[in-house]
């Protein structure tokens, strides 16, 4: 057994086990932490497959950003476990039924799935071993399929603008900070120097 194979089994075992823990652990924060463990192990599998760029992007995007926001939200939720567990027996039969149907379908698909050798050989972009996979990905995304890539980017941009427009409410009568205004203040506009005569005080 080579070391690579050992690591493959190590990563896969931890991945499957922690994926199971994601759905079975009682505390939602623990679920998210197991989800992170799953991501990290998936990145390890990517590394073993030689896709180091994808592995690190997976860690960077999913673990470093998405899961942080996940954890952020889940931690602030106040979840009542007794409330959550109340209906579990009631929904159990239909849940199990759906699970069985899904499993059978997946088994059917996975059991009969064959990738023809011609498909792999004649794919649009053959794998070029002479360049690093960062550069190879760049060539596929930014050179060969640049218009599709730009199209996807524009769709994402529109979605982002839409989300902002939907949630942004500009309330009036709210005091807002104007940084430029604050920086531009000088003693002339900010301070008034008054000579106070003794015994008279300041008339206002």
């Amino acid at each position: 057994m080579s070391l690579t194979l050992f690591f493959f089994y190590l990563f896969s075992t931890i991945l499957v086990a922690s994926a199971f823990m994601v759905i079975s652990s009682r505390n939602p924060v623990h679920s998210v932490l197991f989800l992170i463990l799953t991501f990290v192990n998936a990145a390890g599998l990517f590394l073993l497959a030689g896709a180091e760029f994808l592995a690190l992007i997976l860690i960077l995007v999913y673990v470093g950003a998405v899961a942080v926001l996940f954890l952020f939200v889940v931690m602030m939720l106040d979840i009542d476990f007794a409330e959550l567990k109340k209906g579990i027996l009631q929904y159990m039969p239909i849940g199990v039924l759906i699970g069985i149907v899904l499993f059978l379908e997946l088994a059917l698909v996975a059991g009969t799935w064959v990738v023809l050798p011609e498909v792999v050989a004649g794919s649009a972009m053959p794998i070029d071993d002479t360049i690093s996979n960062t550069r190879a990905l760049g060539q596929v995304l930014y050179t060969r399929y640049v218009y599709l890539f730009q199209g996807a980017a524009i769709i994402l941009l529109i979605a982002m603008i839409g989300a902002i427009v939907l949630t942004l409410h500009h309330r009036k009568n709210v005091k807002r900070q104007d940084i430029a205004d604050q920086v531009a203040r000088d003693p002339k506009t900010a301070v008034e120097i008054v000579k106070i005569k003794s015994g008279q005080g300041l008339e206002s």
Partner: protein
Amino acid sequence: MMEFIVSALDYLLGIPFLGWGEHIGFIYKGLLMLVALLVFVAYFLLADRKIWAAVQMRRGPNVVGIFGLFQSFADLLKFVFKEPVIPASSNKFVFLLAPFVTVVLALAAWVVIPLDYGWALSNINVGILYIFAISSLGIYGIIMGGWASNSKYAFLGALRSAAQMVSYEVSIGFVIVTVLLLVGSLNLTDIVLAQAEMGLAHMLGVPWMNFLNWFWLPLFPMFIIFFISALAETNRPPFDLPEAESELVAGFMVEYGSTPYMMFMLGEYVAIVLMCALTTILFLGGWAAPLEIAPFTWIPGFIWFILKVWLVFFMFSIVKAFVPRYRYDQLMRLGWKVFLPISIFMIFVVALVLQLTGWGWHGGMA
């Protein structure tokens, strides 16, 4: 199975039994680097306190050892021999896991740092991405610690910290992209080599003035943004809001004491030194001597590297002493409304210049 045990033994001991020669000494080198790093961090910590004290016209730690040189080790012993107190209402496993996560992640990033030509423990193709990914995971130690403590202050500190680190990672990422545009490679060794072979000194016809070649000059605004973002990313003052003691007692570390606290502190300082090393590699020419003439080139590269790291760290601690703490909304404004637009704009500028002039590095391992 036997073969696997033998190969695992090779791996651990570095003794070549059956064709695992390439792993010889990897563990030894790693251990050497780890010990050296920890000793250095002890003195970085001392230097931090000494510089801070000097700015405030105090002496700083000066009792343990001559000039207080053993202060950090005395602190280490003190922390280790204290009793760890775990709050009764805390989530014990996560509570104790959090400091480990912080330390391990901070140390793991050092695997790819090249101290000299060929002196990286692991010279991987995507080195800069690896560091960026690992340092983005540093948040987890803080969030887990803050949540598991089951304390309001700790939790608020953790939430602040998460938002802060996610925000400043964005601008650090864009700064790194501009450097990568110039270099054309994600390998850290390539980034350092590229700085010696292109730049202002070559254009002026004085290639021995190496320090003019380095990226701090052509990318000066990005250098500044990277420095400030690195301060925010490592929770250094003036951006130490996660542990703002005037508002949150000690932020996410309130409930921690003794060894777990020490591990948080250690992880934080290792991350700070890592950011100094990254600044050195990206902008200050890594292990290259500042002038390519006789007395400077006699000094070996790793000494230059360490000197540069010390220089950047000196700037880090001077900032800590000089600048008052930012307010939280000011911090967010700086990250999202100032640094992000400037760095995106600079990516366009750099890409445009490279496209129009054909400047850039065309070597390396592609």
